[in-house]
């Protein structure tokens, strides 16, 4: 139970980072922390106490394996996260070109 709590705490740390930081790069790092917290949560769901790798070969019983499905999900989610992070960093570089700053309080063309 404590592990899950720590996992949610990590997510909250990421959210705090997104909400409170003023630097674009730190905000991107916040989203990455959130993403890793969710990935960690998915892996924890799959974990079984003293389980072994889910590889089936003849002559072995299918018992005491960790759940392989969330591992496949995490793989997909990491790839998606890579795409989002790459796009965010590209946007941040373009924003720096236009505004000459990473400070979000100075990037305020849109109002109202």
């Amino acid at each position, binding site marked *: 139970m404590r592990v899950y709590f720590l996992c949610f705490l990590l*997510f909250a740390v990421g*959210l705090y980072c*997104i909400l409170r930081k003023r630097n*674009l790069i730190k*905000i991107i790092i916040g*989203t990455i922390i*959130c*993403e890793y917290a*969710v990935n960690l*949560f*998915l892996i924890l*769901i799959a974990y079984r106490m003293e389980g072994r790798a889910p590889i089936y070969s003849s002559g072995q019983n299918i018992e005491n394996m960790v759940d392989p*499905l*969330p591992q496949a*999900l995490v793989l*997909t*989610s990491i790839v*998606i996260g890579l*795409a*989002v992070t790459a*796009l*965010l960093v590209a*946007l*941040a570089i*373009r*924003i720096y070109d*236009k*505004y000459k700053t990473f400070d979000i309080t100075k*990037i*305020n*063309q*849109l109002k*109202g």
Partner: protein
Amino acid sequence: MNHLLPLFVVLPLLGAFLNSLFVRKKAKVSDFISLVITFSLLIISVISLFLVNKYGVLIYKVGGWFPPFGISLVLDGLSSLLLFTVSLISFFISLYSINYMEKYTSKERFYTLFLLMLAGMNGVVITGDLFNLFVFLELASVASYALVAFGVEKEELEASFKYAIMSSVASLFVLMGIGLIYSYTSTLNMADIAKVLGGSLNKVVVFSGVLFFMGFGLKAAIIPFHAWLPDAHPSAPAPISAALSGLLIKSLGVYSLVRVIYNVLGLKILFSPVCMFLGGSSIMIGVLLAIGQWDIKRLLAYHSISQVGYIMLGLGLGTPLGILGGLFHLFNHSIFKTLLFLNSGAIEYSAGTRNLLKMRGLSLRDSMPLTSLTTLIASMSISGIPPFNGFFSKLIIIFACIKGGFWGYAFWAVIGSILTLSSFMKVYRYSFSTQTQGTSSVREIPLFMKFATASLSLLCVLSSLLFLSGFSNFFLGTAKKVLVDAKNYSTINSILER
């Protein structure tokens, strides 16, 4: 006939790859490719409407695996309604983009991203697997972040960054909800989850329902989660503003929300009052913020929030009449909001400004007669003037509120409609009704743009025929049944065993 289902995802992906890999600076070829793809999607979606009326539910097993194990694509009434809406609007959008996108460089990249977004939206609507829904959701979202920033000017980049951060956090909430549901039920097939849960109100289910509500609610821009929309929608090029407002917030937001909360988790009774309250506040806050705007696209973006409020109010009522009204308004809103955004793009294309105060002196009514007429039709549709479609769907929602005993919400919706009318009177007054002396250099828009806006305004009139019960039963009846008898969703896998 279920071999048609993968085409909804495969065709736009094919178009996207053709555009990005083989087309180099030949804009005519990419126009042609995207037009052919969207038109064939439109035909397949019309066929799917007939199929759903004949067979009820169609399931395609990807890779031949039977449902609880493999990914399945499910076409039922609600999916086919959304697929038809997406295909219809995206066809007109790609027709409009032929002329409009000429002022941007690298048109083929625009079409690539647009078709990827289309693949994502169709995939979200047609999939029967919860994690697959997340993957398509991210596909459509990532394409839309890039499309919002397509102009790479200061404002576009800022809006896109804001949208990307908020929307990716929303996606993470959805993923966490999926993880919780998987740990509780040990399955990812949506119908199978509904079967395992069997309508139980366990704490885990309610908590994951709240996570899904936050995630999909942000994509749908319901009121506490709306902050990204008024920045992101006006910053995109006009066809993309139309696609975001008309399609993306509906397929990624409203559809996924009602599908997961009503059908999969079976939390209809618990979440109905929340949907109604947030929908009601969206109606009022959206329209009040819209009245003060002078940028025409920003004004339209605030109206999107308000109209999604009507849809959520209708769907949240949960009565057959309310759900019918909500779905009808969803279809109508995608038509007239697309038309309004395309018209704002036409004004920007010809007059070069989006500010209502600057349009005053340009005497747009004489120089752009068609755009003036279609804007008038769309404005009357959105504010609910009788012969147009918006009137009938709002009428059904208000009747449903009265019938369900919610007099306050009915009154609230009427006031929202009156305020919508007043804000569109302001738009029309400033953009088209002023006369100036002297000749104007403003020209009418080119042929394809004219064709797209004219046919959409014709659809604004024609779709009010759906008020008649014959059309309504064919078109909205099956979709309504899916949401009214929400518990039946858990049994759809049984048609494969026959």
